[in-house]
């Protein structure tokens, strides 16, 4: 069997990214919740809030270690498996990654040690500042990573330089204030806050069901409910779609998410459910809500959203234009001072990436026939049914979280925490759901970007390192075994410490802190 190193590299990157993203949202949300709990402690002086900070902090610590560790993999992989990508866009993409290290990652990682070890060495206010710095560092970290990721979806502020054969920065402010990146940041951190809130709520529900640590659990329940309500409203209202109109392929992404094959009159209707039929390019049994999609996608009632078929035609035109740039590029590389050629190149430069789409089928895109060009244009359609369903599950979960936190908020505001045990059970069972939503959201964003790794600039197939399939298979299998083992250990520890509950920090199993103190003295 012929192993495809690109496919294997994609699988490896996808799996390790999804794995990393198990820990990231919880770090984002829980760090803010910890800072809020400790703020209450410092303001009221009530010990129980310190106990809460320390207990949830313990679970935070287990999660944080995994998040940091698996994040290193992500940074490595651009170089190991996507060498051409690193060369082609490192001039831009490397900048937010390096700034993330300088500005954010150093901050959170340096202070997280003090968060755990500094309780007896810092004043209350100093320790509170440390906790906030960890939370701010984590969130800034997300900002810079999403600026990098946003640039992959909407590569602004950069131009291709034929002398170096790569993209180079022309305007860094555009890269930083990229609307897609900003939309992604707000949406992703809000999703992280929801994750943190569901985590605290679910475990608190469990304590309340068991009748353990009731005072502790009620306070945790209340703070998670209000924080979760605000976050779940933000995550839905500040959805990612506002960035989807920014560029051609972002439009393709939203058309694919909606399985909208043909362009509709503005404002487009929203397909609540239906059955996307890729072969016949239609969607069966669709239930439509008038005007909603147009409103979500364009924030207007007059702007038209193009359908998939129209976008494929655009792609075809751009491939033809890109081929002009590609042809001239070969000459320019040999003779950089040919001004006439250079002008042609500059006129078609923005479509160069589209010509590279042909490299999937042939080494020399200049040999492409009309049929090849059509095929490459068709290839710009991402996996419609997958995007359609993932998006709907994610959004459905988003509305469920609003309902969940809305009810929880009412219960806590009226002090009826334990009145409805069935609600506590739902709260507990909701525990895995924010992860489902977050991972699906990630899949929608990144699979919706295919076949591009950098939208309109570099096709995924071309971005990989020239490794053999066997090599990548080896590392992929290594990751699967290694990560699965870690996942089991991590989950086991989390459950163990959640079961132990607050006030029982001693690592010895089944021993309460009181017993531990006795045996120590």
């Amino acid at each position, binding site marked *: 069997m012929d192993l495809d190193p690109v496919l294997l590299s994609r699988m490896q990157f996808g799996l390790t990214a999804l794995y990393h993203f198990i820990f990231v949202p919880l770090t984002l949300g829980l760090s803010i919740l910890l800072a809020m709990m400790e703020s209450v402690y410092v303001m009221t002086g009530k010990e129980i809030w310190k106990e809460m900070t320390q207990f949830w902090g313990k679970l935070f610590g287990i999660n944080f*270690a995994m998040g*940091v560790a698996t994040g290193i993999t992500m*940074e490595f992989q*651009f170089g190991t498996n996507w060498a051409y990508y690193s060369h082609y866009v490192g001039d831009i993409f490397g900048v937010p*990654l390096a700034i993330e*290290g300088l500005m954010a990652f150093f901050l959170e990682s*340096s202070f997280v*040690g003090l968060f*755990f070890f500094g309780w007896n060495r810092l004043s209350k206010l100093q320790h509170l500042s440390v906790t906030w710095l960890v939370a701010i560092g984590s969130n800034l970290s997300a900002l810079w990573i999403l600026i990098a990721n946003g640039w992959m979806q909407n590569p602004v502020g950069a131009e291709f330089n034929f002398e170096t054969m790569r993209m180079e920065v022309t305007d860094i402010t555009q890269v930083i204030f990229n609307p897609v990146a900003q939309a992604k940041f707000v949406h992703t951190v809000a999703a992280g806050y929801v994750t943190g809130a569901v985590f605290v709520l679910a475990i608190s529900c469990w304590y309340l069901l068991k009748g353990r640590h009731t005072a502790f659990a009620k306070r945790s329940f209340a703070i998670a409910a209000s924080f979760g309500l605000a976050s779940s409203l933000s995550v839905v209202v500040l959805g990612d779609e506002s960035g989807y109109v920014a560029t051609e392929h972002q439009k393709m992404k939203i058309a694919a998410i909606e399985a909208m094959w043909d362009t509709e009159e503005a404002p487009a209707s929203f397909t609540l459910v239906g059955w996307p039929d890729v072969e016949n390019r239609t969607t069966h049994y669709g239930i439509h809500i008038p005007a909603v999609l147009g409103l979500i996608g364009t924030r207007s009632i007059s702007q038209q959203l193009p359908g998939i078929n129209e976008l494929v035609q655009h792609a075809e035109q751009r491939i033809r234009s890109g081929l002009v740039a590609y042809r001239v590029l070969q000459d320019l590389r040999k003779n950089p001072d040919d001004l006439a050629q250079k002008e042609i190149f500059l006129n078609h430069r923005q479509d160069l990436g589209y010509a590279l789409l042909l490299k999937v089928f042939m080494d020399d895109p200049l040999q492409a026939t009309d049929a090849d060009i059509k095929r490459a244009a068709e290839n710009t359609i991402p996996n419609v049914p997958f995007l359609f369903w993932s998006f709907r599950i994610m959004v459905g979960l988003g509305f469920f979280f609003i309902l969940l936190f809305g009810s929880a908020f009412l219960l806590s505001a009226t002090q009826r925490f334990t009145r409805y045990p069935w609600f506590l059970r739902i709260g507990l069972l909701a525990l895995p759901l924010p992860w489902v939503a977050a991972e699906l959201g990630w899949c929608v964003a990144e699979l919706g970007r295919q076949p591009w790794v950098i939208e309109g600039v570099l096709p995924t197939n071309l971005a990989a390192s020239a490794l053999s399939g066997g090599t990548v298979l080896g590392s992929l299998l290594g990751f699967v075994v290694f990560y699965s083992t870690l996942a089991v*250990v991590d989950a086991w520890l989390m459950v163990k410490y959640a079961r132990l509950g607050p006030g029982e920090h001693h690592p010895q199993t089944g021993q309460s802190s009181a017993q531990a103190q006795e045996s120590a003295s």
Partner: protein
Amino acid sequence: MMELLNYENLRLIWWLFIGVLLIGFAVMDGFDLGVAAMLPFVARTDNERRVAINSIGPTWEGNQVWFILGGGAVFAAFPLLYATAFSGFYFAMFLVLVALIVRPVGFDFRHKIDDSRWRAAWDTCLFIGGVVPAVVFGVAIGNLFLGVPFTFDEDMRLFYTGGFWALLNPFALLVGVVSLSMLVMQGATFLSLKTEGDVARRAGQVMTIACAVFVVTFIIAGIWVSYGMDGYVITSEVNPLAPSNPLAKTVSTESGAWLANYTANPLLFVFPVIALAGALGARVLVKAQAHVLAFISSSLTVAGTIATAGASLFPFFMPSSQNLDASLTLWDASSSHTTLMIMFFATLIFLPLIIIYTSWIYRVMRGKVTEDYVKSNSGSLY
């Protein structure tokens, strides 16, 4: 002022910055790696191990960011170097990655269950997590001197033709030992500073051995580089302002060329002298119980060693043994002028801040880690 920040100077500055980050990593995370690598030798009981681990407990997490930042900075400032080194050393990087993942997890998970098999398993992980990166980094640097088999096609696609086992040649392994002994020395010096009693005593013994191994292997490696292998030289004219294109120059190999910078500028010999004097000084100072000075002295060794290698390789980063002309130098593997400028200012703002708050954290956590301390804080410490 901005005149000074022309493309040529920024390329030089970034070459220096990468060196500074590498030294920052080896000094700071170096002692964490070193402590982990000697864990089985300096700490016999669980309490002793906890003393050793807790001596680096509050700070290892921040320290390892030096490494991640180094990676990010190479990505941003020298993308071709990042692409070539990481994809070329594919399995070596994978090994480092596994080691760097089990380490944080080990620190955090080890103390969470009071079971001797559980803790022994994580001790092994921490040991591996200390030794493997220390050796692999040395092996990688060693291979840079020998040249690495890679080339580019006309689209600048990178082709690497060497395998993993070829990296483990005698010279590279020797540099691996230099690196390991250097970081163990750094770790042992730190442990002498932070602990007392048996752990500190054994750390002193490890320090003596590591120091001796370092001095001997460093000298052998120096002689080998000077007389036992060919160095690389650029034979065409270098335009330090030209757009980055490694294929635009010609390169050849010459015996003794890795010494060329030293003969041209004998002041550079100060680096190897610092490396050796720092090691011997640290040894003397540890014996004299002047632990802070010993740590500074050992850190100077780390800086001197990395500077020695950098001064020899300059202007090369990664010579290619397969297509000499494709060798990566700081003149033709860098980012654009704009990117180097942006990153220069970002570093200028944030690096001092990092140093300030890191120093504050060390001040807060100053003092010895003792057995009584770890016993009475078993819930809140590692």
